[in-house]
């Protein structure tokens, strides 16, 4: 294992360059993440948080700079080529699962993430059945009895919890969470966050978690970065992070962005 699980070296990404809609999303961004480190990412709308995750996962290719995953340069690799090392949960609970397929079929697809898929091996293997059931039972949502249910029939919270499980099922080198609790009701969001904590810690997953919720950003993870205009404006960890409060963070946030925060979603 390399010393750094993830390295971004001077990554710059511009959307629609050379047009009136040109938008600088990431600007010469540097970031190192150690193996097993859990980084929470905050920042205003358009600060480049999701673009950062998209560059890491290969959805967007940067104009310049390099992306290294576990020491390997993956800058030019496409999303599906990086998938074996990256698990991802999106904000939209509909995004992470195939609705037309059953719970166990979805799990079976996640089990072989990034591997070559055979035209002859059965997708849902009997040998995995017990492990799937145990993992589903661990979520505490009663999904273990609904393995043959189409995922489209589940609630948003159930689908998101399942997506989380799928992202970690084949232990990824990197787990990317993009506001994965933002679309859930407060109780379900709490539950999914607890599940996140337990999965990340149990497998010591290197994690990048975007959140709009400053309290979550402080409560969870080992390190916190704040993004502003495509760069990292604040990077705290250890004691400094533990001493940080939502109020102080908010003050820094306003100072960085040069405006008052009116969106109380950030504070909650």
């Amino acid at each position, binding site marked *: 294992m390399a010393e750094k699980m993830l390295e971004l070296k001077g990554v710059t990404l511009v959307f629609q360059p050379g047009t009136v809609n040109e938008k600088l999303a990431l600007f010469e961004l540097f970031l190192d993440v150690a193996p097993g480190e859990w980084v929470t990412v905050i920042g205003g709308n358009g600060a480049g948080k999701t673009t950062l995750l998209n560059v890491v*996962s290969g959805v967007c290719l940067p104009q310049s700079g390099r992306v290294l995953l576990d020491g390997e340069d993956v800058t030019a690799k*496409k*999303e*599906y*080529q990086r*998938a*074996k090392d*990256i698990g*991802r949960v999106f904000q939209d609970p*509909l*995004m*992470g*699962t*195939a*609705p*037309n*397929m*059953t719970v166990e*079929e979805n799990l*079976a*697809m*996640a089990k*072989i*993430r*990034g*591997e070559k*898929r*055979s*035209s*002859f*091996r*059965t*997708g*849902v293997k009997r040998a995995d059945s017990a492990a799937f059931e145990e993992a589903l039972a661990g979520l505490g949502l009663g999904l273990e009895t609904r393995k043959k*249910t*189409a*995922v*489209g*029939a589940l609630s948003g919270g159930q689908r998101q919890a399942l997506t989380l499980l799928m992202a970690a099922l084949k232990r990824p080198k990197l787990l990317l969470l993009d506001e994965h609790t933002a679309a859930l009701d407060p109780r379900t969001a709490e539950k999914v966050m607890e599940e996140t904590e337990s999965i990340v810690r149990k497998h010591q997953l290197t994690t990048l978690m975007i959140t709009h919720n400053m309290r979550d950003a402080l409560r969870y993870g080992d390190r916190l970065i704040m993004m502003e205009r495509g760069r990292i404006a604040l990077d705290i960890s250890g004691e400094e992070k533990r001493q940080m409060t939502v109020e102080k963070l908010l003050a820094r946030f306003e100072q960085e962005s040069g405006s008052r925060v009116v969106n109380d979603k950030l504070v909650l």
Partner: protein
Amino acid sequence: MLSVLLSAASQGLLWALVAFGVFITYRILDFADLTTDGTVAFGGATCALLITVGADPLLATFAATVMGCLAGLLTGVLATKARIPAILSGILVQLALYSINLRVMDNKSNLALLRKPTVFRAVADLLGVSNAVSELIVGLFAVVLCGTLLWLFLRTEKGLAIRATGGNPRMIRASGVNTDSTTILALMIANALIGLGGSLLAQQQGYSDVQMGVGAIVIGLASVVIGEVLFGRKSLLRSLIAVALGSIVYRCVIALIMLAPFFNNGDLKILTAAIVGLALWIPRLKRPGGKQKMLYGGRKD
């Protein structure tokens, strides 16, 4: 009356192969593949050409299947690599196939198979049965074989990836699947089945016609929708059986309607369009305001 229905049933079995193809593209892949019409005629033309030059009918049928597969490959490449919208990709290949089919049939609009060997005649001779019975046997054999293989394949790792490509391409890409490849593969399999259907249809009717595929996608769709309305789509297996039965029901309904003195052969297309329109409409009437989702299996939300 009974003989009319029997002949309709064997027609339905052969068209069920086309319907399987439409099921793969339209339902599983969520890709309205208009190559279908061209592929039916392409399968028929290829098969007729080979039989008239003396090839074994079984070989000719196999060649037609391969040709269908290639048509699907072309549509898939246009849709994924060239990023041409799905419908347009299919239309382009369908249009191109019209010219190709004319070339294949030596610039004639049809090619007769009178007194030529066909798989139906071969089976009839082998088993000592009439042509009508042979058509039923061959049709049933082809549908059960293709349906079973399809069912088994769609449960494999690759099969799951194809189904997920239709259900949530973004998710399956994040799982490491190249969705361009799965899209192309699904189109190849679908059009192989459709080419096979076209070749058997040409052998059954005794000629191949450049127009024989017109409306094939709608006929396939009719079979899919009628099957699902009548026989349900609780599981993949159930859906496949429903599609095959739907194709037979569709043919029987058309055959019965055509018995009425008012209708003539030219009215077939409008009747087909009416049946598909109604079959797509009825499920909505049953669930007022309900959103009809392009799903098979499971509950609709």
